[in-house]
């Protein structure tokens, strides 16, 4: 490492208003172990050029989205894995906070939040009670909550079993999506499905994200009537004519 160049950087985004977000640049420290930097001012200004490049691109992206269709779906790709995971982390944390289940000493940045705390959230408990919640996590173990096995009547005296109420609640969460965009129709990868649906729902709507937990979001064989593509790879005319139809997404769904 005698001739290595190292760059340490720390940036933090702080929301100011709904659409004003200063990006704080606490520390940007280029360093060459071979010698000191030639000119600190020059290296710093070169970095600022890079930050400006980012800002120009993001601003243009934001304007393009608002000009066209802010709810237009993005195409999730493999390179978005970190984005997908972080969005899910944020959505889960917000959902947990809304449930009021976090302890006074809990600190999200310290990683104190656990699935046990999430299970105390009323919404989460309700969605878990649905049998198809086994697919809430594509990687998680298959299990049923105790209430779905035993409770036929609601303990609080309301009509309907917990299962039925959970199903109804989950469907209410997704009912404002067109039928063909419901989670059961989304393809191969659970994270990609969540990402896509979060985009559809509009930037991390925790209600919809919570609703997803009760659905089949893992890979699921297509029903014949649900297939967006024929075997020959053509899109049925009715599908292609549907508003918001995206051939790229349809191809993605077809992938094994």
């Amino acid at each position, binding site marked *: 490492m005698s001739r290595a160049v190292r760059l340490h950087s720390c940036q933090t985004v702080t*929301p100011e208003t709904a*659409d004003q977000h200063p990006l704080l640049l606490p520390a940007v420290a280029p360093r060459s172990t071979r010698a000191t930097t030639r000119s600190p001012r020059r290296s*710093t200004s070169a970095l600022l050029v890079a930050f400006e490049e980012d800002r120009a691109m993001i601003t243009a992206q934001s304007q393009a989205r608002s000009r066209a269709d802010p709810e237009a779906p993005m195409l999730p790709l493999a390179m978005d894995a970190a984005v997908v995971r972080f969005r899910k982390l*944020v959505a889960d944390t917000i959902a947990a906070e809304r449930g009021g289940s976090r302890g006074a000493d809990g*600190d999200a940045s310290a990683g104190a939040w656990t699935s046990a705390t999430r299970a105390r959230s009323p919404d989460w408990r309700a969605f878990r009670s649905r049998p198809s919640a086994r697919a809430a996590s594509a990687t998680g173990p298959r299990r049923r909550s105790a209430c779905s096995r035993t409770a036929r009547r609601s303990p609080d005296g309301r009509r309907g079993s917990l299962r039925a109420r959970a199903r109804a609640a989950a469907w209410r969460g997704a009912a404002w999506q067109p039928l063909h965009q419901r989670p059961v129709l989304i393809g191969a990868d659970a994270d990609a499905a969540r990402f896509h649906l979060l985009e559809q729902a509009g930037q991390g709507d925790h209600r919809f994200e919570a609703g997803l937990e009760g659905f089949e979001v893992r890979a699921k064989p297509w029903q014949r009537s649900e297939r967006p593509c024929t075997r020959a790879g053509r899109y049925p005319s009715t599908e292609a004519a549907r508003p918001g139809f995206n051939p790229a997404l349809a191809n993605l769904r077809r992938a094994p």
Partner: protein
Amino acid sequence: MFVRNCWYVIAWDHEVPAGRPLQPAPCSARRSCSYRTAGGEITALRDRCCHRLAPLSKGRKEGDCVRCGYHGLLFDATGRCIEIPGSETRAGEGAGAALSAGGEEQVGVRLDGRPGAGRPGAPARQLLAATTRTGTTCRGYLHYSTPQQLICDNLLDFSHLSYVHEKTLGGTTAIAQARAEIENGAARHPVTRKVHDVPPPPYYRAVRAAPGNLDRWFIYDFVLPGTLLMHSGGRPGRRRRKAT
């Protein structure tokens, strides 16, 4: 919609000097107003009076308290309203304007008002301390008029270096082609991306980089609510090391 149970950085330590008149934080999460108490502690209040929502930063400090400049309600350093002019009643606990605040290098607030564990931006402060010992440090702000999520997306995916920063930090399309390794964490996802034997980016000319191809690495960690910690660098590529 924001995560509330987190520290948000709102200012540099030197931007909240003792004795400074009230003013809104330069970088304000939900519009806060920060100041130092007589004991030197940093405190932050939501920058609006519970009465008519006038900004408290337009008021004045009275000891460790803040008096609203509109109708004169007095708030203590915890954000509790302790005096209402012309009234014997107190607004009570719930009517305050409290935000938790604290900090050394950076001043942070928590939107939930709870003191919480840790200090604001603890990982960032460690990095800051390390980097200021070893090299140049630039501190400042960039203001965006875009949704926060788009900024986070940018910081979370370094494949854009190849194209957005082609003439500065990138310099090669190999960065976009490299497969990123992502570790699972409770509140963070460290990402590692390595590329081998690529030409140095134009930015490296600004530092005294060795000529020839480099092996480059990008190790970064994105922590709630939106802090990126990044370590990157380059060293002479394998072929050159073998040749020498």
